[in-house]
């Protein structure tokens, strides 16, 4: 395995592992707090039980998220010293802010976990809110760094050396808003629907158990609105990419030939040699319409980009299609569930809706991974778009396949252990009969 490829693969594995815990770490505290507030309002101890169980699971995941994040901050240097040397002074500040956000999160998670009976209820809820807010901020700060890699600003280079820096302008880069919005919604929709799906599945087998019904409602409260907004946020992101990173956009859409009135390509397999996309469904002029709100607008395609600067077109296109398809499904199921809830109908008696929700359980995670593949693979061969090539950023150390293999095995193993633990934590669910019926 060539060193550059090994480094990229190690980065991808480490981030792909971390993001799972990050997504959960961002959203679970919100679920906890919502359940706790319901308990305080209604006095219904089922909600208290939920909040406590969720807090316990969150603590395990938080720890794994924290160590994998620690690894990442070293890996940025171990694998990409050339990138960090250039980017550190320009965009290092959000990383420091993420450190603070994490610290606040860890402190108040400690208060939350140990404070159930020690501090007043209001203070306890406030601690939960702080955990939720600082978790979300952690994500926002790192994604700002990534947005800067896609839309670099705030510095002047002369022959590869920095001559002027404006870190605040770098943080306020063009991609920052769309990416952080999309990522934050991704965290809430992924986790919310995953939890909803698990309890929906349980409700199908045990429809009288109010424990699952209440959990499902809290999870939908967090997940469903986010899932409905997500395609809109994705559309904003896509329109930004079309302007700032035409090569990535063309790869997402598998568009080889620049034209006016470009079609939207659904599915299909891009044949890079032949420069055409096979077996796809094309919606005439839809891409121009979606992207520039003008059915005749011109879309720059891969023929405008030098061949050696193309990203991996099939991988980017496929990932994008997967994300959009799953996002569409998640949004539709969410609309359905909210419609049922809005008309005050019982969720428990609707096996088809419950099945549809259960099917969505893993989808957010898959969509999130796919979305990051789009972002990261689509940016290649650049690590900083138009400024620094990935090949020029990698460490000169040979033999990178060894750390890649080691960390991959380690993460695979930890992933399995975490799953086992979570299964055991959820094995015994209380049976709470619904008094209402």
């Amino acid at each position: 395995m060539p060193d550059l490829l090994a480094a990229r693969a190690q980065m991808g594995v480490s981030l792909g592992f971390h993001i799972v815990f990050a997504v959960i770490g961002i959203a679970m505290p919100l679920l906890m707090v919502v359940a706790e507030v319901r308990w305080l309002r209604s006095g219904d101890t089922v909600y208290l039980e939920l909040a406590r169980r969720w807090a316990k699971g969150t603590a395990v995941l938080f720890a794994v998220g924290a160590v994998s994040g620690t690894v990442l901050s070293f890996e940025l240097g171990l694998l990409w010293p050339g990138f960090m040397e250039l980017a550190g002074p320009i965009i290092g500040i959000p990383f420091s802010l993420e450190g603070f956000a994490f610290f606040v999160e860890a402190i108040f998670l400690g208060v939350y976990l140990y404070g159930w009976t020690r501090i007043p209820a209001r203070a306890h809820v406030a601690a939960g809110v702080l955990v939720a807010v600082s978790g979300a901020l952690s994500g926002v700060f790192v994604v700002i760094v990534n947005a800067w890699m896609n839309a670099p600003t705030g510095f002047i280079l002369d022959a590869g050396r920095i001559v002027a820096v404006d870190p605040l302008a770098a943080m306020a880069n063009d991609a920052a808003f769309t990416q952080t919005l999309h990522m934050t919604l991704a965290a809430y929709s992924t986790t919310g629907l995953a939890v909803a799906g698990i309890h929906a599945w349980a409700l199908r087998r045990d429809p009288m158990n109010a424990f699952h019904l209440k959990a499902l409602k809290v999870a939908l409260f967090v997940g469903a609105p986010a899932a409905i907004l997500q395609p809109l946020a994705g559309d904003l992101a896509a329109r930004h990419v079309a302007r700032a990173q035409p090569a990535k956009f063309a790869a997402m859409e598998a568009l080889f030939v620049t034209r006016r009135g470009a079609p939207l390509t659904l599915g299909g397999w891009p044949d890079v040699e032949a420069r055409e996309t096979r077996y796809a469904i094309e919606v005439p002029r839809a891409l121009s319409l979606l992207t520039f709100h003008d059915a005749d607008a011109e879309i720059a395609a891969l023929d405008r980009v030098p061949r050696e600067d193309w990203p991996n077109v099939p991988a980017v296109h496929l990932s994008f299609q997967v994300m959009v398809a799953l996002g569409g499904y998640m949004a539709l199921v969410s609309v359905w569930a909210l419609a049922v809830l809005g008309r005050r109908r019982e969720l428990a008696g609707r096996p088809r809706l419950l099945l549809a929700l259960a099917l969505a359980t893993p989808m957010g995670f898959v969509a999130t991974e796919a979305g990051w593949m789009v972002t990261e693979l689509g940016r290649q061969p650049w690590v900083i778009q138009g400024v620094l090539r990935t090949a020029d950023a990698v460490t000169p150390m040979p033999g990178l396949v060894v750390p890649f293999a080691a960390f991959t095995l380690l993460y695979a193993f930890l992933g399995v252990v975490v799953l086992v633990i979570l299964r055991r934590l959820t094995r015994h669910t209380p049976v709470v009969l619904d008094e209402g019926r």
Partner: protein
Amino acid sequence: MSAADTLAGIVVLALNAYVLLGGADFGGGVWDLLARGPRAARQRELVAHAIGPVWEANHVWLILAIVLLFTCFPAAFARISIALHVPLAVMLVGVVVRGSAFTFRSSGVGDAAFERRWGRAFAGASLLTPVLLGVTLGAIASGRVREPGAGSRTFLADYVSPWLTPFGVAVGLLTLACFAYLAAVYLVLEAEDQDLREDFRHRAMRSGIAVLAAAVLALGLAGTGAPRLVDGLVRSPWAIPHVAITAFTATAAFAGLWRRRYGLARVAAAAEVSLLVWGWARAQYPYIVPPDLTVAGAAAPPITLRLVLIGLGGGAVVLIPALYYLFRVFKMPGDR
């Protein structure tokens, strides 16, 4: 004092905090591994109880040091990351295994065998990680972390010889000894019954001697292993007072343990280890990565440094009261 000097000082301060707080967690793992005798199970319990609530918060100090390094001293970060890839990567494996193992063990889902297995992983990683952290710091101090050589060099010359030296290993052992020592001294105070307290009192004294032995060994090897460091230690006008105060705190810590004045022992031991950290930093100054990268030379543009300082100030205003509150909550009577 320039902004760069201040920030370099804060990096050392973060490392110092990591050594005092995170280090004690590692040391706890060492005592978990070495738990012996009729009270072994209770010794392990005490360690787990003492680490439990705060370990994640403690880890942040290492992150802070790293983040400050790459934001404010990018050239130093790049140089260290390239030359010390191997020990850093192994250290990271230790960090991951240790953190996960501890949480898995205390997640309360497993049977005794499950807890024992993860307990061993936790303890083993607690042993490995500090040694590599020390090896890394020793390598930096030794002045062998240079610009990668021209093409003809070998993997061993470029990526192993900077750190695998007698001096480096000695600093690794010193780090491990310090962590174990700190943990034992803290645990004496945490222990609630007399027998456990005596167990850890003996361990604290023994590991205190180990610290002194390792420090003497490292200093002895520094003559050839890190000549510049010795120069820096000896040449400065602060050399004699620094050594004198360190010796004084070490004596005070022993006296505290001997006379069972544990509060005194804790403060003195923490001061002793901190003085070792600052002695290294002082000897190395003005170099951040000797022999050629100075603090000023590796520094990021002034605007970045200024913003980071502002951010740190703002952060401290939020974090210090929050931490205070956390410790208050732990001390309150409650369900656990």
